[in-house]
């Protein structure tokens, strides 16, 4: 699976309050897209094109566990996020929503706004500005969830397996 798009750069400690304001938590996923990254750049939803990639510093997605943050980013068409590090709950939420999320500090250092970035999700290879980097590969268990398209697909598979076992 390949993600390819233009880079949008953000700094360290971007919080989920900035990624998606909490008072939008009751909104539908389609409505959320209009507020993606509102706390950092209100024009982001207009600038982002399908497949574009956020490149950020340390501890991206800090704070609230609101899942409307990855939902809104996904709704805005974002293809992936590459950062130096992520806040734990945000990382887990992105996996759960099938939004690819990679740790690759070297690629972050090399990335400039507007550059094209190309990511091979299976291998973790990241190409940016003519240079190649290796992101931390996904642990096998998480790859299983990603292959199911997120945690709903994974849960459906588990329920189906249980039903089979109960019927057998």
């Amino acid at each position, binding site marked *: 699976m390949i993600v390819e798009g233009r880079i949008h750069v953000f700094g360290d400690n971007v919080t989920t309050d900035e990624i998606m*304001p909490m008072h939008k*938590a009751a909104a539908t996923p389609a409505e959320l897209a209009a507020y993606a990254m509102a706390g950092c750049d209100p024009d982001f939803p207009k600038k982002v094109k399908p497949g574009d990639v956020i490149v950020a510093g*340390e501890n991206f997605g800090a704070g609230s*566990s609101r899942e409307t943050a990855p939902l809104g980013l996904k709704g805005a068409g974002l293809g992936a996020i590459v950062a130096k590090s992520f806040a734990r709950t945000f990382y887990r939420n992105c996996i759960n929503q099938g939004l690819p999320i990679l740790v690759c500090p070297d690629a972050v250092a090399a990335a400039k706004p507007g550059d094209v970035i190309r990511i091979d999700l299976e291998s973790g290879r990241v190409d940016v500005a003519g240079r190649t980097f290796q992101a931390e590969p996904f642990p096998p268990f998480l790859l299983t969830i990603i292959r199911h398209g997120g*945690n709903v697909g*994974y849960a459906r598979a588990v329920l189906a397996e249980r039903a089979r076992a109960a019927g057998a």
Partner: protein
Amino acid sequence: MGMTITQKILAHKAGKDRVATGEFVTVPVDLAACHDAAANVVMDTFEATGADRVFDPERVAMTMRAYVPARDPVVAQVHERMRRFARRYGIRHFFDYDGGPHGIEHVLYPAQGLIAAGDVFLNSDSHTPTAGAFGAFAPAMGWSDVGVGLALGTTWFRVPESIKVVVDGPLRPYVGGKDIVLTLIGTIGVAGATYQVLEWTGSTIRALPIEERMTICNMAVEAGAKSAIMEPDEVSQAYIASRGGRPGIVFRSDPDATYARTVSFRGDALEPVVAKPSLPDRVAPVSEVRGTKVTQVFIGTCTNGRLSDLRAAASILKGRKVARGVRLLVSPATRETYMQALKEGLVEVLMEAGATVSPASCGPCAALHSGVLGPDDVCVSTSNRNFPGRMGHPDSKVYLAGPYVAAAAAVAGAIVPPEEVAR
């Protein structure tokens, strides 16, 4: 090699003799829960799994606390959907504001006897680690995780490393759980414990009442941690028993358990602190920011909205008035907290001083309902987060503090050491 309390809980639940840090485990959950701000995503996810029932209606809880009473037609529909969901799936612990108990789950669920030692608690919220004060594994979780957990009755974890935090010695007057946890966050930073569990121990912690222990565990995620935990003892087990809860299983860390690191500090060296705008690790002693003018003071939340916090605030505010131009907002964490505060006369003390008391809820904590800040506002809040825009306008400023510092700021109109007001 020994295991931490967290490893032992996860090993027990996974049916294994031992688990190593970094290992992925799938474990049954003792309680799966969500609140009204997360409910839409939780219910959407549950329905998307195709499940026709929740894994165990006796072990599911839902509470109304973010938008209470309903703030607008959108959240009113969320509340309606929650009621339909609870009826349809027979949810046993459904806390609506219809006369029964309700409020912030981190205070409400322990008070309802729903949390036990050794539990795995799956709840759609960042401040779930509060339940770690009872020796439960209660990580901060997202929302679809709970939706899936409702269907499966299980969830997965990467077994975390732990940081041992040791606090020894007696505390000085006006220093409490909030000052302890803010001091730690100021020391290790907002990402200082990413993917790790904060395991709190030491004579200071053991001497603390349960409510202050909950305040400390509450702010795990502000240090980036997955959770916080304390060994169960007479204090925590007595609280659970008094609430008709299950005895649970008491796990203790082995003396030779491995920790990512140990952070130690002296309780008697601590002073009242604040976290300056706009990150929880920008911690400074009150003396350093002394004289900072404030326009709003908020006392409440899952961090410091318990009865002991209202008592602390009232002890400063009794017989005094808030400074002109300061709005003092108080939001008890649960309906029970509110009732107890009424019966003790605390509400009268707070209102005589000038407080506006709002219904049991999260109140202004996250700009969810009321008490929202404008661009020029400076607020002292007993909550856990002071990110830009957390309480309203992105230019507003929030200082985090404990209830004594907050109450003193309301009286002085500025951040001052509590003893200056109390004397």
